[in-house]
């Protein structure tokens, strides 16, 4: 159990800057997701921490050790790959024992550790089978057992659940979280699935074009996005832009919107983000922020209704409503929307 520190890490491939001045800390025992679209540099960052890629600049610390120049095999990491990467010519027990053997643990001692690890991932008795005889979910659990049996300093997960189908993925999420909590391993998890990042992590780091644009607890990152990208990539957002006027924001159509966010001085351009589920269709709840809009599309998804709307001056909006009163509004209806200044977040563009 150790923390991981990344200091001023940069990596370029030819003219392309993949990571730019990344500095962050992964606290001991924490579960951090690196979330971003493909090309954001999240996998590169993970592979730099693992030691597969050497950064052009910067320092990687695992605990108190500077491992920047230590190769992968000397870093004591546990890693899970998207493709499971189980050794097909070995049995499950041999796969799990592989890292132990490299550490000089053999025979009875190794067998005990392997049994314990397989028990942890609920695969006791599978030791004599080969990877091909297991389902995808089972193979992934073997990969997890193989990664944690060596008691690594840090657990690195490279989109390990993306090859599983939805139901299995949810099961594995629960399993992964349980095992991470039991083992107390500092865990870094790369994903492009925002829901996965929110449900699993203590901390979410959002990456965009080689930079960490925001890092924090899931709730903070979701409720208080700092940039337009963060607001858009993690969840959905409506964006309103206007100019600051006497502590509020005047939109181009003249509507004045209030926000609890700290706003710049009078006359400055500002972008406001409002989550679609924070907007309400009820008009009489005394909220100061209102807009009227016409419903262009209704998406009925059972418990949640999604409305796509358009203001008279052509601004597109999204609104999620609980399917509570059983009344579904129709396309073409004009409605009045309201929301609270608390949920009106000023974001950087």
């Amino acid at each position, binding site marked *: 159990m150790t923390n991981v520190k990344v200091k001023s890490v940069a990596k370029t491939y030819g003219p392309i800057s993949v990571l730019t001045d990344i500095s962050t800390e992964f606290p001991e025992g924490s579960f951090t997701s690196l979330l971003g679209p493909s090309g954001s540099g999240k996998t590169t960052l993970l592979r730099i921490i*693992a030691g597969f890629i050497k950064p052009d600049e910067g320092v990687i610390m695992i605990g108190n050790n500077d491992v920047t120049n230590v*190769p992968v*095999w000397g870093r004591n990491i546990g890693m899970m*790959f998207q*493709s499971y990467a189980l050794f097909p*010519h070995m049995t499950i027990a041999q796969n799990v024992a592989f890292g132990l053997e*490299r550490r000089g643990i053999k025979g009875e001692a190794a067998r005990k550790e392997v049994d314990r690890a397989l028990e942890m991932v609920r695969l006791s008795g599978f030791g004599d089978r080969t990877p091909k005889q297991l389902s995808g979910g089972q193979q992934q659990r073997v*990969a997890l057992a193989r990664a944690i049996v060596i008691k690594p300093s840090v657990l*690195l997960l490279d989109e390990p659940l993306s090859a599983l189908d939805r139901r299995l993925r949810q099961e594995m999420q629960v399993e992964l979280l349980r095992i991470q909590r039991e083992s107390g391993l500092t865990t870094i998890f790369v994903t492009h699935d925002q829901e996965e990042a929110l449900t699993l992590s203590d901390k979410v780091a959002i990456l965009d074009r080689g930079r960490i644009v925001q890092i924090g607890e899931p709730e903070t990152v979701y409720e208080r996005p700092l940039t337009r990208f963060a607001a858009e990539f993690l969840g959905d957002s409506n964006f309103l832009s206007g100019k600051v006027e006497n502590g509020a924001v005047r939109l181009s159509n003249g509507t004045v919107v209030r926000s609890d966010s700290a706003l710049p001085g009078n006359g400055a351009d500002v972008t406001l983000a409002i989550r679609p589920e924070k907007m309400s269709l009820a008009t009489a709840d005394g909220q100061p922020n209102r807009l009227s809009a016409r419903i262009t599309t209704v998406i009925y998804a059972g418990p949640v209704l999604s409305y796509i709307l358009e203001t008279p001056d052509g601004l597109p909006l999204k609104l999620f409503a609980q399917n509570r009163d059983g009344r579904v509004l129709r396309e073409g209806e004009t409605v009045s929307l309201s929301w609270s200044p608390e949920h009106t977040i000023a974001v950087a563009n």
Partner: protein
Amino acid sequence: MRQLGRFYLIAILLFLYTPIVVMMAMGFNASPLYELPFTFSTRWYEALLSNQPLLKAGANSIIIALITAVIATTLGTMASVALSRRTFRGRSLLQILLLPPIAIPWLITGTAMLIFFYWSGIGRGMHALLIGHVALAIPYVVLVVGTGFKTVRADLEEAAMSLGSTPVHAFFSVTLPLLYPSILGAALFAFAVSLDQFVISYFLATPGYTTLPVQIYSAIRKGFTPEINAISTLLLLGSMAAILIFARFAKPGDTRDKR
């Protein structure tokens, strides 16, 4: 339709094996002039035992083929590792240049080798034969092992390294065991290329050191004896046994899960 298919299959097998079967049978026929009726005899095998030049050439051929297989497979596998796992300047050029030798007529390669070996002082003889055969076999090895590499995912080695393996240990404990059917196939290919080789061997052999195909050729020029049938039969049975053993264990072309 089925009848027709079977007929074709039998016709093809007959076409392939009749000459060989006739040759094998004639090795056991008492008549030196292939006269019928067939009289069973082992006299040609007995004669073979006392035909020192033919036996020595046969032994030379097998020794050269074995050494060629070992060297070409080692070098070719190393080249495949570099070509499929590393990036370096000139990689694609190398990859392209490794294949044309397969298509260059042996007569041309042989002439070129003879001239070059003469000019450079390498000369002729066993070492020259070995160099020539290894050079000839390497492209086949790279082709076969390179294809095998495509089935071994690179992240397996990465997984091994994350568990504490050095790249060398990862290669020997993970990649090599998975590649072994391809490597075995490549070695067999190299062995066969060398054993079969006549044109280049003819140029590089010396009167004192020759291989079986060259020896057979010069023997036929002097006058054909069924001893040649005898040694050819032995050689044939040997290589067929090798191939059958390989097919039994490596199952080339079998992509089904082995459960």
